[in-house]
């Protein structure tokens, strides 16, 4: 017994003051950005019924933290922000006319997944825009994702945009059955051209079709990529997908965000979840995407309401790791003033009042609670790098400046 008492479970960690303050600062910036953009913040429970995630087949059961309640029902820790929001949109918000703009900043719990850089508990900030299926909505969400990353201080940002419908359109036109299409999508997603070539031969694709297939994982640019596929592809479904991405680029150009964006039609992960554009965000010094998002028009319908939806999430933990490794300054915590006092009558009251006044001015003030004398307090202030030390005695106030 007690073997683990000094430890935290795998994939979770304590957050120390500097990190915690930095994180709160980032949260506040994002909260403000989301609110100013018209996204209302919500909190969903940390515990959901397992069915919420299981019914739409959104998440492999191995990836969910599960527990039971006293009635023998299976519960799951919050895995993502999207599915609970979809549940809300179809239940508590069912009479609210669309569009719905919602945001969240919450901890997620995942086994085996890379969403938080293989951490099992990590904080995501995200938004969902429900009830609009327009390209403008797609672009609004991508632009907000870019703004969010910039807001956290990340400047070297790359956003890759893909389109699930492009791949589906091709598979449909080439009459490839769903199960095989899934295998092909996996090969494309891994950029495994060796396996792709074999698949192409197996399904008897023509040489031009095969060329197109092999181009999917290897082309990434902007308009040039879209042009290249426009010339090769006839399926109306796939062409509509290309047109969607083209218009998204046009709009992002209006936002002034073109320099962050590229097109990668080979990005096909979580294909059954996404129904339109998909995007991911990358930066230096971190091996995992920090942003992930896309359009998922079929998720809310699992909960009984037919509602288009698009959203993204940004991993705060990964952002902080990236910022630290990129030598971007994180917030430092310092104490402005420490106040000590002698045991003469009235001194304590004076010290407490002084601290209150300083705090009212936004300064960080400590009142000594160890009964240090003036000399000890002076040493203490110097050792801890506290800028100012005040010692109250004899009704007169003794001020000393430490450091500067």
């Amino acid at each position: 017994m007690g073997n683990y008492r000094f430890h935290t479970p795998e994939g979770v960690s304590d957050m120390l003051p500097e990190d915690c303050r930095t994180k709160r600062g980032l949260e506040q910036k994002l909260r403000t950005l989301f609110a100013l953009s018209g996204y209302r913040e919500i909190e969903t429970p940390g515990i959901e019924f397992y069915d919420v995630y299981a019914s739409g087949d959104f998440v492999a059961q191995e990836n969910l933290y599960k527990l039971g309640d006293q009635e023998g029902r299976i519960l799951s820790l919050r895995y993502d922000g999207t599915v609970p929001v979809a549940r809300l949109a179809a239940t508590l918000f069912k009479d609210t006319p669309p569009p719905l703009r919602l945001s969240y900043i919450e901890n997620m719990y995942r086994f085996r997944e890379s969403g938080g850089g293989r951490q099992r508990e990590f904080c995501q900030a995200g938004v969902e825009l429900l009830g609009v299926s327009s390209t403008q909505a797609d672009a609004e969400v991508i632009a907000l994702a870019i703004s969010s990353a910039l807001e956290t201080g990340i400047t070297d940002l790359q956003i890759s945009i893909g389109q699930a419908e492009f791949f589906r359109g091709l598979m449909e036109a080439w009459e490839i059955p769903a199960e095989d299409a899934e295998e092909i999508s996996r090969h494309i997603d891994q950029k495994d051209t060796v396996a792709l070539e074999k698949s192409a031969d197996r399904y008897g694709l023509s040489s031009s079709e095969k060329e197109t297939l092999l181009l999917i994982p290897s082309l990434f640019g902007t308009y040039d990529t879209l042009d290249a596929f426009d010339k090769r592809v006839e399926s109306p479904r796939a062409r509509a997908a290309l047109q969607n991405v083209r218009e998204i680029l046009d709009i992002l150009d209006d936002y002034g965000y073109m320099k962050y964006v590229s097109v990668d039609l080979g990005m096909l992960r979580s294909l059954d979840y996404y129904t339109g554009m998909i995007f991911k965000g990358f930066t230096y010094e971190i091996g995992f995407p920090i942003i992930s998002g896309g359009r998922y028009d079929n998720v809310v319908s699992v909960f009984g309401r037919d509602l288009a939806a698009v959203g993204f999430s940004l991993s705060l933990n990964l952002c902080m790791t990236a910022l630290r490794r990129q030598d971007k300054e994180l917030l430092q915590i310092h104490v402005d003033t420490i106040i000590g006092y002698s045991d003469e009558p009235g001194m304590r009251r004076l010290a407490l009042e002084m601290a209150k006044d300083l705090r009212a001015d936004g300064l960080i003030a400590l009142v000594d609670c160890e009964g240090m004398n003036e000399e000890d307090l002076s040493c203490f202030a110097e050792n801890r790098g506290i800028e100012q030390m005040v010692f109250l005695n004899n009704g007169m106030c003794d001020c000393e400046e430490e450091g500067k």
Partner: protein
Amino acid sequence: MTDMITIALSKGRLAEQALDLLEAAGYDCRAAREKSRRLILEDEKAGLRFIMAKPADVPTYVEYGAADIGVVGKDTLLEEGRQLYEVIDLGFGACQMCVCGPVSLKGKLDQIPNKRVASKYPNITRSYFEGTKRESVEIIKLNGSVELAPLIGLAEVIVDIVESGRTLRENGLDVLEVIADISARVIVNRVSMKMKAQSIMPMLDALRCQLAKQKEEGAAK
């Protein structure tokens, strides 16, 4: 701007062959050839940093982005199941991942119920039997000399890499089913592929070119 590229190599023959290919493709790999015990070999001028790792760890370094590129056997990739780009089949280190067992079991594998399968590759074994064959088996993880298991009654069959098949034959075993073709692959971190595209894409192209050239030369001979 050129970025520093970190390449994780699987210690041993695979590393040597990978370096040969990189050199033939025009990259200066002298740093990596140094006979030393250093684990990180860096050549700032060439913009290359090499790390020598245990094969099973190469996909991990690359998935986390500690290395941008890796060279590793397909067997390790299948076993580790990491989220990576798997971009080039280098062709060398070729062998097969197989279900092997006593010759007497040839063609009768499906007739044994509740099989025990010994392997160094529990994940590949599970995904093959449970995923492809839709069959539940008991998997016994071993760390070496897996051929022993069926001989001594620890397991009915094994899942292992087969190169020439000599060890198998000398022990009265044979290949019963082929799971996958194995060879060395170039893997790339998903973020590096985007963030360092300017350095990585030309390298991949040069490797592909060199491979094609060698193939042609091989055919000509």
